């Protein structure tokens, strides 16, 4: 693994900010939509803003609105969030190995703000250089307030926006993730890991729709990496 020296903090901060800009542009319409849906589900503007600020996890927030009863059942919603966000436990376990340059409280803070995009960009960064707190702060400093404010805007303004998926906006995230995966393609066993993960996740998704496909695919990929033949394509 090539470990380039980290740049000066302002440069690192700017790099983190720039890396997440496309993800922010794509996430804002979904946050607006989330807010717009909340009124129909009996969630007040203040409640929706609080949810975005404290939970800060889009997928689980959409799922929560689906299951939001009157009154909401706290343990059911908590359990659902746990299942939907279980992938963050895996991401956390992986990311924590790259937080060596962070003070102890900084690690906690970084992980609390770890959404899929921030995690993926941080992993990609850590593959070539030292992951710095300044870079991570740059990733979060704009992403977090835009998510919370856009949710509030949607809740206040109602359905300003049609389904962002019809505009293909969800493919911005898919494109980002595909590019990040492709960046790892010279790692040993890359194709074996991808094949195992794809196979297991698709099979699980067909049998058991929901959040489990991510865990199954990730587990299969890791097993192949651990017990598959050593070496393979790419450099070791």
């Amino acid at each position, binding site marked *: 693994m090539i470990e380039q020296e980290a740049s000066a903090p302002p440069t690192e901060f700017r790099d983190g900010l720039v890396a997440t800009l496309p993800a922010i542009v794509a996430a804002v319409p979904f946050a607006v939509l989330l807010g717009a849906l909340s009124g129909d589900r009996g969630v007040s503007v203040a409640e929706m803003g609080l949810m975005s600020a404290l939970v800060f996890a889009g997928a689980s927030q959409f799922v929560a609105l689906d299951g939001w009863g009157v009154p909401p059942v706290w343990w059911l919603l908590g359990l659902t969030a746990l299942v939907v966000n279980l992938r963050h436990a895996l991401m956390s376990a992986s990311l924590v190995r790259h937080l060596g340059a962070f003070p102890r409280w900084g690690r906690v803070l970084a992980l609390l703000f770890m959404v899929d995009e921030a995690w993926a960009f941080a992993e990609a960064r850590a593959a070539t250089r030292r992951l710095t707190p300044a870079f991570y702060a740059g990733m979060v400093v704009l992403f977090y307030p835009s998510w919370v404010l856009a949710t509030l805007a949607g809740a206040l303004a109602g359905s300003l926006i049609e389904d962002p998926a019809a505009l293909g906006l969800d493919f911005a995230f898919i494109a980002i993730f595909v590019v*990040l995966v492709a960046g790892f393609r010279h790692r040993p066993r890359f194709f074996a890991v991808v094949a195992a993960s794809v196979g297991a996740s698709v099979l699980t998704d067909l049998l058991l729709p929901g959040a489990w496909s991510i865990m199954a695919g990730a587990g299969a990929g890791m097993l192949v990496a651990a017990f598959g033949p050593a070496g393979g394509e790419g450099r070791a």
Partner: protein
Amino acid sequence: MSISLDALLAILAMAAATMACRLAGLVLPTPLIGTGRLARAFDAMPVAILSAILAPLLLTRGPADALAGAVVILAATRLPMIAVIALGVGAAAAARAWLCARPVSGLPCARRSRARRD
């Protein structure tokens, strides 16, 4: 413009569950990973997780998304990220508009959830 007690409890439960997942890595005995099989499994984690997120979205959400996914994968190693994003969004919008107007036999055009995103 108010917060009910039931809603507050539900939001706190969701936040606690999410925070627990995000902090889970801190209790991991990182030094034990070292080298060998466990280290190889951990090194594979980013690729394994991202592939597992992507595969169902690209392969089980109908022909339009699969087509747009193929465009993105082909572009991923050839173009800068911002171009891949633009191409992906454009391809998805076009393929969905085109293919969803006349659904392919039996295949759901968009079983996609409105957003599994954050």
